[in-house]
């Protein structure tokens, strides 16, 4: 069971919220596959143009000084070039995959290269069933769905979710920034996460998730 089944059995999935940029997820996937398949430098340049400035902004927002933020953006894009063969469009959208690389770059920088939180490349975490070829772009749909799910959160929930991505001591910092008690931060985050998961994961996941 995976997101593929979810998308198939839910043709009534909500349309993207009006007025939002729907992203160029499909185009980004194409660029990544061009790098993976043909070491396509033009594709890399296009991807760099789209993501490097956003990566720099993200690193800065997480508290990295500007010069180091640009270095990390560079390193992230070079890692994208090196690891493009490992990108599986059936498992993650382009932005999601690049995000995980950036996150690991930041953790490695902070922890002197020694501990990665979650190694998405790890073969033991690869789902056992291969992604059918005609579903290869399903993660683009997944990205679209997460955007719809994010816009469906209350503004308060969306805020704690965003801050969770930017603050290393999220609960304490969020508590300070928003001026709300820690218990409220946690309960908002949990509610938000449940709503995101309900939107994105298969309905029977709870039943199947506990068995190997």
């Amino acid at each position, binding site marked *: 069971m995976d997101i593929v089944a979810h998308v198939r059995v839910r043709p009534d999935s909500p349309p993207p919220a009006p007025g939002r*940029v729907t*992203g160029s997820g499909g185009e980004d996937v194409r660029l990544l596959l061009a790098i993976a398949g043909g070491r396509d*430098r033009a594709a890399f*340049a296009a991807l760099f*143009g789209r993501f*490097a*400035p*956003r990566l*720099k*902004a*993200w690193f800065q927002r997480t508290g990295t000084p500007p010069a180091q933020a*640009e270095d990390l*953006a*560079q390193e992230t894009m*070079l890692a994208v*070039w*090196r*690891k493009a063969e490992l990108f599986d469009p059936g*498992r*993650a959208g382009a*932005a*999601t*995959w*690049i*995000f*995980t690389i950036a*996150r690991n770059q*930041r*953790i490695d920088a*902070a*922890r*002197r*290269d*020694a*501990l*990665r*939180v*979650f*190694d998405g490349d*790890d073969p033991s975490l690869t789902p056992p069933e291969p992604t059918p070829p005609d579903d290869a772009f399903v993660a683009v749909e997944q*990205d679209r769905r*997460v*955007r719809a799910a994010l816009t469906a959160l209350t503004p308060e929930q969306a805020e704690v979710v965003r801050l*969770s*991505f930017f603050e*290393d001591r*999220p609960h304490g910092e969020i508590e300070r920034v928003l001026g709300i008690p820690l218990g409220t931060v*946690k309960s908002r*985050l*949990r509610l*938000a*996460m*449940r709503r*995101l*998961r309900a939107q*994105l*994961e298969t309905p029977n996941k709870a039943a*199947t*998730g*506990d068995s190997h």
Partner: protein
Amino acid sequence: MNTPPPSPGHPPPGHHPAEDALLRHAAGTLPAGHALVVATHLRFCPSCRDGVRTGETTGGAILEDMAPADLSPGALDRAMARLDTAAVAAHAAPPVRFQGVALPAALGALLAPRWRWTGPGVRRIVLNPPGAARAERVWLLRVEPGRALPSHGHTGWEAACVLSGGFTDRTGHYERGDVAETDESARHRPIASRDEPCICLIAWMGPLTPRGVLPRLFQQLNGM
């Protein structure tokens, strides 16, 4: 791999990391020790792997929505110039096997060669994950069957993942792959199951608050 509680007398415990911990794990903003506990749990739990993936997808959307920052002049050229020297994708380090469990490679690298006596029926391996806060402790703890840890409270969070055996405290019964998370308000006295030694990866923040003279001595001897 969440086996049900061994008897119907136990209420269903919280065997998974809390949803906010999964989200922060995906975001890369969990403390180092807590992240290691969650990463270990993910080895056992497809459902939480899906949860982390949802968090990562959220991260992808947030990244895409960032207002672009200005790059320094020539940034693209510098990146392009490095493409030819960029090494081919390195393979991920193989997971480490411990007690029949595939652990994150990062955890395996931290394992010290031997267990150290910690108290009656209790031994530990102290881990020092890079990036851990000064007040953060990360141990592999081995408790002989039926043994109890001294009753103690916390001044910060605690997170544990059972690697083998099981334990029970007032919050529930935990077995292989289960995660127990507590916060500073919690006070507990974990007891290992009777059938086999209980081995846990355990991380916590801040000093423990043992009750009684012997437990305090136990704490001081062990730097808890």
